[in-house]
């Protein structure tokens, strides 16, 4: 380890700080940078996706409650991957399967309809919130990883002091600056991740509530239909 720090290169430039750092700190910085990139990729894609989903769900429900012919509506929506459409398809398919037989157990059919649509809702929510756990992990772990890099870098700086027999600020400062840079990157990655996680959790909850509402409404409709059957 070279205890002599180059003062001329001791700037706040991230590249310079990265290049001066110890390899452990470099590893930490690189990992945190990747985490930050991945976090932002998730944030961008997820926010676009959930906004589109909620807009299309609202339109789907509006169309659904306006339509008179459910069979025709089902045919039109059969290849949609919208969560509401999936729940709707699950309900319609279960309805067809249950009413195909001659004898209809109305209570059993109602229960099966509810279960089928509940399963569809759970599946859609699960798919939707697939990436959120990454945000949660980055948000909670990145500060600690950055702190680890900082502690390691400061330990190295103190070793440098001992080796140089000199505790002047000029000897200590560059090492500490590059060590603190690790914590800075950790926070840089963690803060957007935590904010996005909370915000997207809220968005997913709202989507789930909307799906449940739709499923209950559809279930009510089917149940009413069931009363008139046969």
């Amino acid at each position, binding site marked *: 380890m070279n205890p002599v720090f180059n003062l001329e290169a001791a700037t*706040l*430039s*991230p*590249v310079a700080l990265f290049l001066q750092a110890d390899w452990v700190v470099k590893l930490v910085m690189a990992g945190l940078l990747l985490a930050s*990139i*991945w976090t932002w990729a998730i944030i961008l*894609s997820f926010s676009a996706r959930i906004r589109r989903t909620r807009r299309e769900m609202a339109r789907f429900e509006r169309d659904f409650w306006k339509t008179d012919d459910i069979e025709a509506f089902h045919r039109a929506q059969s290849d949609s991957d919208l969560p509401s459409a999936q729940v709707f398809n699950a309900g319609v398919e279960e309805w067809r399967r249950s009413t195909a037989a001659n004898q209809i157990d109305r209570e059993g059919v109602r229960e099966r309809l509810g279960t089928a649509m509940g399963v569809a809702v759970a599946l859609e929510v699960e798919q939707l919130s697939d990436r959120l756990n990454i945000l949660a992990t980055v948000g909670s772990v990145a500060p600690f990883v950055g702190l680890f890099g900082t502690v390691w870098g400061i330990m190295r700086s103190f070793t440098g002091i001992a080796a140089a027999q000199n505790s002047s600020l000029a000897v200590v*400062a*560059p090492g500490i600056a590059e060590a603190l840079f690790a914590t800075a990157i950790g926070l840089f990655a963690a803060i957007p991740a935590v904010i996005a996680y909370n915000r997207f959790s809220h968005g997913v909850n709202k989507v789930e509530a909307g799906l449940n509402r739709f499923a209950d409404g559809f279930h009510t409709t089917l149940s009413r239909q069931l009363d008139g059957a046969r």
Partner: protein
Amino acid sequence: MQRGEKLALGVAVAGHVVLFGLLSVGFLATPNPLKLAPQPIQVSLADDIAIEQTSPNPAAEAAPSVAPEQGPPEDAASPEPTPVEAEPEPAPEPKPAPPAPPQPAPRPQKPAPASSPVPQPRPLPKPQPPAAKPAPAKPAPAKPAPAKPAAAAPAKPAQTSRGTGRDAQATAARPRGSRLGDDFLKGLSDRQTPSRAEAAPAAKMGAQAAADIGSAILRQVQPCANRQVTPGPGAERIRVAINLRLNRDGSLASRPRVVGHTGVDDENRRYVDRVDDLAIATFVGCSPLRGLPDELYDVQNGWSNFTLRYKLPG
């Protein structure tokens, strides 16, 4: 990974590259990273108290007062009529009279006590001095040296080159303290005594004392200096030679004058006038300077007319 996620990943990578690229080229960087480099600072070592007179050996003054009081050597001294020669002669004489030395020995620091040995080494003659009462009375108050400058200062600020008030007293006391009259030395009149005393107070302020006074003055104006705002980058490198005319009480006799500059370069050239004004304002603002040694006021290179170098803090 869905198509939307790939697109978002690309956007995120591009955003990070742009952000760190901006940081790397100095966007948001510290304006002057050179501040990290240690710059040499000027350190002036100054004694806190040691403002003392660099004066000739004070023993030369004490000697003649003892000389006339000893009978036999006086005869040896008398043949020499020249007053100048009288000085070296008496010098050896105090040695034969050892009772005195213990006292003058600690004194030589102060030129003032020159007169005090007169009454003290002679317990015997004391019965006689009562005849001339004013004489013993005077050396007594003279001993608390600090009191004297205050009294002497207003009286004769200009006379000091000829001899301080103390020395005048000393000349007066000498004949009275001895058993002999004024004419104990033939051909040696009162006229010459003041001229002889010229040697002692012709003190010249030495380099050490000048440095001490300079740093004492700078210490006192430091509060005012700290209030000054540096007009621009590099202005703190300008060193101003400033001339102070001081009264004996430490106040300014006239406005300080700037007599020269060093450290002026292309960067700070335009601040020179401003730095001059700031330097003058500093000394005017903290002007009654205190604690400067009075005995070095009027001597050669004394602080009545003192030039020192000043630079803005920072």
